[in-house]
């Protein structure tokens, strides 16, 4: 007998966003089906991976995560270049960790100096991520937007508390914003409404649902993302049809299981492979739930996930 897969009737589509500029720019989104459901729809733009760069030598990383970047870890511009040249990064995410008021508390001027150095060093699309301190992020991101006018940066996290100032700067200086909400579909929608009402075009918004890693409650983000996709694709909710970005690497690598050495916990196995798998599986689970951009760290975790995206597509 012949068997037909029971198909879903989709009536919506994810908006297509153009990220970056020139030849290294690309589009994300545009799909009209659930992730990798090629038997009933199309994903014209496959999910992308952005490689992390930190604006100062990160602390508390396990050796596995430091090793690939050891020679460039104190120089964000060279770090970004290494990601592109050596590891084939198609996108960079600069984490402005040094601006944290509870940490080094670097000024908006210092931060935007680093951003412009990195943006001159690489031509791929550049994400600039703050510290989730709404007040400080607002100052930093506005300054960054201005300094790198028309560079088509992707800036965030933009929250309900600081969206006005950042949205205004993003419109004025032509950047994309990351709309960040705390694992809640209604808050995600509300922020998108606020942003579009203040003049940001829907094509210049990415949704950050706030994610965690496997073993640390990834199911919350997983289900919120699935619900966002169901609303976007089957309920024509155009306020949730933006591509989704997941800042997942830092979550995966901060867990104690990613840090413990084999000698400390032999029952957890080889620490290098374990760290890579914790990151790669976390990213994979979020891709299954609807992620369009994964911010990742370890080159081997990235190449694994890229391979699998291709296998699911071809």
């Amino acid at each position, binding site marked *: 007998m012949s068997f037909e897969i029971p198909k879903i009737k989709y009536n919506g589509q994810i908006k297509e966003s153009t990220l970056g500029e020139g030849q290294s720019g690309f589009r994300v989104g545009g799909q009209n089906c659930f992730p990798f459901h090629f038997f009933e729809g199309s994903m014209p733009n496959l999910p992308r991976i952005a490689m992390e760069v930190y604006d100062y030598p990160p602390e*508390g990383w396990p050796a596995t995560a430091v090793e690939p970047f050891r020679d460039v870890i104190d120089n964000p511009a060279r770090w970004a270049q290494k990601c592109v040249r050596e590891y084939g990064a198609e996108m960079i995410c600069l984490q402005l960790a040094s601006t944290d008021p509870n940490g080094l508390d670097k000024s908006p001027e210092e931060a935007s100096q680093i951003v412009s150095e990195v943006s001159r060093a690489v031509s791929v699309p550049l994400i600039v991520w703050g510290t989730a301190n709404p007040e400080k992020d607002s100052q930093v991101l506005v300054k960054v937007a201005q300094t790198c006018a028309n560079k088509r940066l992707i800036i965030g996290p933009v929250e309900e508390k600081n969206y006005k100032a950042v949205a205004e700067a993003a419109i004025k200086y032509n950047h994309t914003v990351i709309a960040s909400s705390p694992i809640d579909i209604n808050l995600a929608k509300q922020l998108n409404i606020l942003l579009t009402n203040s003049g940001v075009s829907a094509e210049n918004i990415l949704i950050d649902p706030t994610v965690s890693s496997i073993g640390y409650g990834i199911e919350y983000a997983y289900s919120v993302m699935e619900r966002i996709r169901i609303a976007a694709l089957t309920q024509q909710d155009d306020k949730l049809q933006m591509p989704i970005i997941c800042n997942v690497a830092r979550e995966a690598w901060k867990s104690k299981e990613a840090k413990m050495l084999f000698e400390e916990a032999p029952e957890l196995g080889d620490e290098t492979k374990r760290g890579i798998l914790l990151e790669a599986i976390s990213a994979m689970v979020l891709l299954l739930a609807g992620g369009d951009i994964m911010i990742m760290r370890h080159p081997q975790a990235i190449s694994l996930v890229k391979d699998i995206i291709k296998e699911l597509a071809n």
Partner: protein
Amino acid sequence: MALSGIEIFKLLPKTNCGDCGVPTCLAFAMSIAAGKAELDKCPHLSDEARTRLEEASAPPIRPVSIGAGERLVKTGGETVMFRHEKRFENPAPIAFITSDSLDEKQMNRQFNLFNTLRYERAGNSLKAEMLVIRYDSANQEKYVSAVEQALADTDASLILMCDEPAVLEKALLVSASTRPLIYGADSENIESMLELARKFDCPLVVKGKNVENLIALSEQITATGFKNLVLDSGARTLKQSFTDQIAIRRAALNSKFRPLGFPTIVFPCEMTDDPLKETLYASILIAKYAGIVVMSDIQAEALFPLLVERLNIFTDPQRPLATKEGIYEIGGPDENSPVLLTSNFSLTYFLLTGEIESSRVPAYLLVKDTEGLSIMTAWAAGKFSADNICEFIKKCGIEEKINHRKLIIPGYVDFESSGIEEELEGWEVLIGPREGAHLPAYLKNWGK
């Protein structure tokens, strides 16, 4: 799906004989619909009516039990496509392959790893549940002895992977009481495999060349009344396997298509030689609908991530994971160490222990029962406020462990500090950071 009382009533004898213990057939029908009575109570039901009623009330994906006693595992019984709709019922058992041609040392290593790689997390015991004993040796005695050894050395639920009915029968003679899963029936051997499954009362994998072929075989088997089936669609690439899993789950749930209304088995072990890739494949199929996941070799660094992923995906969305209330000692604290208070929402607990460990400042973490709610939700629900916090502090026994009286509370409930100080005589309340990430910096300055 479930029938209404009226629909059930139409199939009953309508004699109102009362033999079922209820005065009328209608009342009996209503009790069945409400799940309060068993169909078997009616001695006069026709076979035809019984079959129809049983079919109509059966779950869309049949739950299948494999193993017995401590080896019992359940798969299937799923009712939704997305976990937020209800919950995923039975975490897909993870199986590892043991070839019967391994030498004794290798086999012992496998069994030993199987027994020792176990993890405790939020009150759950995480482990691989199954072993596949694969017939590679072409030697009947070797196969039977591998099965015997697996049963003697481990508490695994077994899958007997063997395509020679005569050898399989010998293995079943020594293992049938543990109800192993037989792998499996295909177009060539369907009669003999089904006969063995019936004879030894064991669940059976039906293996199609593709989904169409699987349906044909499943129909052939279920027509005989045999229902303890597990489905293998034959896919051995990630993409085909992923697609088949979605197709089978949708056909069973959305189209109520009975031949596919059984749990599935998938084989990442046969899709690649790269262990990391195999683990990623398994992670995808755990999230997307596999009933049993078969892996090649046991590696701790791969098993642990898969187990925590599975725990997360199969967590009931209505009931957050909760940690047990009590005093948690981190890093060997002494009588001068800081004391921190938090809720028993597992995520908060995991994050805080991680941050305290990385601060390298030994500390006591007091976990108060908030029914698994996070700090702010628990506070809003009245489960994390001054009065019940004080009650907990007094009874938990922390006062005997320390010679100071300083309590660090979460930054988000700073407004409860004076209330706590009022009720907890002699205690000083300190406001901790709002975010766990800021805890190491905070602790390093503690006492300075």
